[in-house]
């Protein structure tokens, strides 16, 4: 008997991501309720699965069929909605990234879930990608000292990928992304902070696994039209993050590169939203030999829901401490990067 999922939010992340993903896990989950914040978009999405729909969160959380809550609203609402779901007795929560925008909120959310025994998972899908699991095993087996981590993302508008997993107008039209005034330090800092917490956060749990102790930001700059270039040190490892969201052009590049004393390991992630298998992993050794691991049929979106199912079943632990540490790592980095963009010393 599939478990009932209540989905809070009715934007592209629901229409093109979670509804199609959950449809692939129909034996395990069934969407029973969709709510929006007043946009009216919940009704047509709910109609796809015969689910109920509502506005706000109260009706959804009071729906007795809702056992699992997916928090897919705008980031500023995540923490409060997770707390509301816990208070309403949700058995498990998948919160889209980020979990919270402040350290205090993150702590409150995690502690509430821990106290209530609510399973919690944050949708940083790259962490769950089967390819990253493979890469981790390789790095552990190889055992060489880690020296650098670089993550490079060059992304066309998402609507290109919405179109391969769903139908209808769910995305932001190409070229319509807001372009902030990057000459204004406050606006630039806000952009960089928001992008790190909303976009860079996909990979930051991976970065924390590799370089657990955040030390300091070395540089941080906005990239036009919308993007960032950030360098920081964590656990003695040099980390560079570069991302740019482009109005069109080439297909998405999203690459994680891990440098050790002897090897370079690349993880090339598939475009967001899509279900065409795992990322690819290749390893180049010092002598120039390259090993390419075969891609897996699964992907991070499926894997994160499967991981939540395992937590519900009690076959996998809920890693509250790790979730909190991941959230705090991202917030600390984003705050320090924003300070660096504003030109504040000691960032």
């Amino acid at each position: 008997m599939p478990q009932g999922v209540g989905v809070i939010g009715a934007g592209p992340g629901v229409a093109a991501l979670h509804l199609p993903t959950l449809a692939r896990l129909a034996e395990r989950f069934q969407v029973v309720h969709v709510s929006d914040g007043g946009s009216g978009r919940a009704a047509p999405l709910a109609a796809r699965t015969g689910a109920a729909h509502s506005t706000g969160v109260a009706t959804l959380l009071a729906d007795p069929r809702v056992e699992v809550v997916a928090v897919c609203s705008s980031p500023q609402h995540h923490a409060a909605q997770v707390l509301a779901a816990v208070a309403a007795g949700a058995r498990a929560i998948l919160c889209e990234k980020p979990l919270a925008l402040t350290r205090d909120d993150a702590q409150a959310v995690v502690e509430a879930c821990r106290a209530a025994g609510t399973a919690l998972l944050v949708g940083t899908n790259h962490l769950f990608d089967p390819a990253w699991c493979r890469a981790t095993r390789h790095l552990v087996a190889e055992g060489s000292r880690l020296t650098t981590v670089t993550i490079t993302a060059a992304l066309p508008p998402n609507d290109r990928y919405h179109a391969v997993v769903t139908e209808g107008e769910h995305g932001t039209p190409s070229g319509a992304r807001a372009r902030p005034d990057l000459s204004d330090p406050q606006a630039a800092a806000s952009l960089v902070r928001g992008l790190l917490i909303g976009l860079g956060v996909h990979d930051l749990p991976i970065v924390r696994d590799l370089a657990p102790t955040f030390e300091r930001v070395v540089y941080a700059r906005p990239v036009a039209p919308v993007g960032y270039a950030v360098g920081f040190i964590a656990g003695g490892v040099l980390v560079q993050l570069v991302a740019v969201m482009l109005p069109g052009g080439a297909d998405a590049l999203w690459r994680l590169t891990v440098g050790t004393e002897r090897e370079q390991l690349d993880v090339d992630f598939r475009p967001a939203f899509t279900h065409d298998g795992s990322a690819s992993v290749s390893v180049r050794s010092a002598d120039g030999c390259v090993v390419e691991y075969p891609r897996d049929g699964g992907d991070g979106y499926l894997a994160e829901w499967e991981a939540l199912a395992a937590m519900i079943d009690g076959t996998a632990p809920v890693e509250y401490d790790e979730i909190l540490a991941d959230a705090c790592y991202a917030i600390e980095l984003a705050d320090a990067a924003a300070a660096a963009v504003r030109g504040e010393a000691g960032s």
Partner: protein
Amino acid sequence: MIGVWTTLPAYRAVAAELPLSTRSADSPAGAVVVVGGGGGSDIAAAAAVVLVDPVPGAAPTVPDGPPVIVDRVWLRSDVAAAAGICDAAVFTAECAAAAGELAGVVRDAIGWLRQLADAPLTLESVHAVGGSAMALLRAGERPATLTVRTIADRAARPRLRVLAAGASRTEVVVDGQDATVVVTTQGGAQRMPVLPESRQRLALRRALEAVALRGQGDPGDLAELRHDDQLCALVLDELHRRPVEGRQKPG
């Protein structure tokens, strides 16, 4: 036909691959003079100079005068031409080599950033930890990042990868002596053709062209080398200021 003055076996060999254009010269005067490393004293009267794999920092010792072609191991002019100039939002370069070869690789990685951006670079920030470094540079208003990694293996094959990310994306990978250029647009990815010509023959051909065109413009190699050298020195200074503990494992 022009004389080629060189003691380098590789250049003697490629001179033989240009049999209609070159001959062996008896003296450097009026010849294409091929010199390794930091230059030499006999080049002032040369018709052109080929500076082979110059050690970082050596370029400023080359006197002004004849046109200078620089034969750079990891930045070939034909590969650069294949990559072209990129209207990109951001540029990145990653390079890795054993300690003994790292300086040249870093310099050429910086050269690649300059080449793809078609603009001089300025260094905004550099930091090193344990044999690795990262730097933020700027090409005009556009950022360019650099990652440098020392490989703990003296026999390691150097590698650099440079990316220009925009609506069109250009990626250059130089892996040992192999170089590939892939340009990706919404229509797909195209691997750009590069002639299978040795870099020595390429440099010698360019020197012959420079002689033929003398007075009609400088090849620009030396100015570019000096630009790249200067920034490379700043990165290496930081790298050497923070050496890795126990870096040299047995190769």
